[in-house]
């Protein structure tokens, strides 16, 4: 077929449309999910946590977390009667296999921890390349194909929630199971929690039970003085928790 001027002019728009299609890349995996309609958070009810470690095991399995690293972990606090400012905190293997017997006397309780998905996250602000970011639905994610592994964010996180994955040498952290919540599921840790101590919450959904809970309970976030806009809310948190 000869390319005449007429044919070329006809072909050009078609080529332009095809190029646009190529540029669009892979289609959205969850077509019914609209990022602008959600603002994700989590509620942790400390008096309900039994320290079984189900959340830690589930997180490791769901997200392929390397051995010895934790995207979520459980801390056991022991507060002796006479020194509330200096609690004994331990987290053997992140609480993955449960906990050995606790000391008798004083106050003992479990505190599950994970990324606080801060609205004003210090970790995303220090990234020099834009490999970590807050999504429009309020989840702090890491783009591992763009991360240099410079560790700035690991240092910046006041909650110690980030680590460098030894296999990929990139920063890693809790993704709030973004691949699950965008498909209408809850996170792996919330899914397996046997006592309901962890609840995924959508602050933009007026029907979410979180709003009623926040109204009727005394709820705190970790390190509020750092003004990180943390979105993991703790109910029944002792003053000794750091």
């Amino acid at each position: 077929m000869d390319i005449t001027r007429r044919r070329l002019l006809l072909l050009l728009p078609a080529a332009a449309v095809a190029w646009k299609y190529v540029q669009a890349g892979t289609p959205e995996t969850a077509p019914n999910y609209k990022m602008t309609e959600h603002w994700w958070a989590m509620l942790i009810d400390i008096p309900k946590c039994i320290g079984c470690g189900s959340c830690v095991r589930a997180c490791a399995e769901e997200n392929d977390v390397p051995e010895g690293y934790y995207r979520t972990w459980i801390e056991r606090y022991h507060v002796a009667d006479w020194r509330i400012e200096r609690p004994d905190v331990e987290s053997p293997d992140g609480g993955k296999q449960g906990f050995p017997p606790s000391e008798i006397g004083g106050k003992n309780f479990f505190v599950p921890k994970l990324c606080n998905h801060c609205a004003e996250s210090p970790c995303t602000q220090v990234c020099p390349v834009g490999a970590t970011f807050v999504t429009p639905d309020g989840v702090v994610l890491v783009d591992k194909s763009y991360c240099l592994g410079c560790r700035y964010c690991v240092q910046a996180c006041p909650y110690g929630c980030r680590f460098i994955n030894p296999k990929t040498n990139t920063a890693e952290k809790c993704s709030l199971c973004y691949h699950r919540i965008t498909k209408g599921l809850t996170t792996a840790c919330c899914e397996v929690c046997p006592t309901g101590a962890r609840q995924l919450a959508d602050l933009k959904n007026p029907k979410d039970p979180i709003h009623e809970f926040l109204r009727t309970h005394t709820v705190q976030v970790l390190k509020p003085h750092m003004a990180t806009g943390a979105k993991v809310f703790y109910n029944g948190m002792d003053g000794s928790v750091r």
Partner: protein
Amino acid sequence: MFKDIEHLVRLAAVMAIALIAFATMRALVVPRSFGEYGHYRGDAIAEIAARPVAFAGHDVCEACHIDVVEQKKQGKHVVVPCEACHGAQAKHADDPASVKPAKLDTAVVCARCHEANSAKPKGFPQVATADHAGGLACDICHQPHRPKIETPAATKPATEGKK
């Protein structure tokens, strides 16, 4: 006035080439979706969301295992999601015929939650498994989906443990 303008033209040409080279390099190196939502690669969101799931969720389990749901409703374990004990079962849910979940060792699984520990909430049922069962598997006496033992003939509650 512009007597020796030639060298200025040459300089302008060099700068124009440098500018074009910069623009071309930038277009090649910066990912297309960078800046779509903010100072990051917009496509990364869809890539992370595309990961496969490992835990199916109890709604999926309950669609088939209706008998277990009925059993659980009669006891306190109604609030315990399936995969808390049975582990990640998305593969089983996708292909129930060929992927079968492993049989659980109740002596291990039950103790994860019910082993006595003073850090656990006071109202939560706890036992020192060594004294309570002496190494026996829990499901010899307890039905895991409906754990309370209800034997009308028993003179004292069986949960007190055996000597």
